[in-house]
């Protein structure tokens, strides 16, 4: 440690003095074995440092350039190789300015994603969800907002405390269906009779509208859209269901006053289509 400090003090000496006597002073320090003597040498070097920089201006200049025997310099520079103090200060100021600009740019880009493409999840339920479903006017839904994941996508699910508490009050042993996956502990619970009442074929009004077939399989509703695949329906409320296997697909059953589901609102990719239920021959 003392040797390192001594070397630092020697390096701080004026260039000419350092070049001429630096190695010898270091040699004397290296020959000193005693720690106390080494400390005294360090003090002596510090005093020498002050003396050389204050009282010996002749040592402040750069060492003379080595010359060949005929007097011609081997290498000559027109200016000192050390940067000027003004240049160093300007460089430091410029570095701080560039760093500050880079930091400001990163912060601005993060707060303004339009400048830099940053993929952020869009969590927005369909507008129709904000309205109360038909036939449920008496039920006031006070929902908590939880985030569920569905195949890597973020799904916003609205839940009702009153609906979650329903089984314990009515008939806990009755068959029911619940949302599978994360968050199923507070999912909507619907009895099997209601689920069975939703099964049927729903036909679009226009020619381009799809036809959906909803069936009951193993206590769970299955949605089959012609030409778009099949998926299980996970209940979100008494009338709203999410198609688990079809991206951005939701179903909301529309019931009349007697509770009969006469149609569904099919939400797919932010568009809604109403499909009217095909009348079953048994119903007539």
């Amino acid at each position, binding site marked *: 440690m003392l040797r390192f400090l001594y070397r630092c003090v020697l390096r701080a000496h004026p260039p000419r*003095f350092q070049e001429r006597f630096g190695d010898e*002073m270091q040699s004397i320090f290296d020959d000193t074995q005693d720690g106390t003597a080494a400390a*005294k040498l360090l003090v*002596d*070097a510090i005093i020498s440092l002050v003396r050389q920089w204050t009282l010996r201006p002749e040592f402040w200049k750069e060492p003379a350039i080595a010359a060949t025997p005929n007097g011609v310099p081997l290498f000559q520079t027109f200016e000192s190789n050390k940067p000027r103090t003004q240049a160093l200060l300007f460089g430091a100021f410029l570095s701080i300015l560039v760093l500050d600009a880079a930091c400001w740019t990163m912060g601005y880009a993060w707060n303004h994603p339009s400048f830099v493409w940053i993929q952020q999840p869009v969590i927005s339920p369909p507008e129709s969800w904000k309205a109360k479903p038909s036939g449920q006017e008496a039920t006031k839904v006070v929902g908590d907002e939880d985030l569920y994941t569905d195949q890597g996508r973020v799904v916003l699910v609205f839940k009702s405390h009153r609906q979650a508490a329903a089984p314990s009050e009515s008939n806990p042993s009755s068959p029911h269906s619940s949302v599978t996956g994360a968050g199923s502990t507070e999912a909507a619970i619907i009895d099997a009779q209601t689920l069975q009442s939703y099964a049927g074929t729903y036909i679009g009004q226009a020619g381009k509208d799809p036809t959906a077939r909803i069936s009951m399989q193993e206590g769970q509703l299955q949605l089959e859209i012609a030409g778009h695949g099949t998926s299980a329906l996970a209940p979100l409320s008494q009338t709203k269901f999410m198609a688990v296997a079809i991206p951005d697909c939701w179903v909301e059953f529309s019931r009349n006053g007697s509770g009969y589901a006469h149609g569904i609102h099919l939400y797919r990719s932010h568009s809604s289509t109403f499909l009217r239920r095909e009348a079953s021959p048994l119903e007539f």
Partner: protein
Amino acid sequence: MKDDISSFLPLSPATLHILLSLAGEELHGYGIMQEVQRQSDGQYKLGPGTLYDNLQKLIDRRLVEELGHRPGDDDPRRRYYRLSSLGRGVLTAEIARLDGVVREGKMRLQIRPRRA
């Protein structure tokens, strides 16, 4: 020449001890420090900073000559120095001056008790 020598006098204690240590043989810096310590019976210790500061002045005034490195030395970083003829003359003059000072001092010290 004599006027030139007298312009160097009186010598500072450090300069005197350095010239005196080099009067016997060629020495490197560490050798000069040890010789100064030996000559003064350990009462005067010269640090490397003081030594080389004075050596530089003595070299510039041509009182001391730098010989450079010696091939057979243990440490190649050491440089050897010797007393120049001018330096020897200045040292001789300083010793003579100091001798007169010593004689004067002894005389005064012998007289003073008699006055009292």
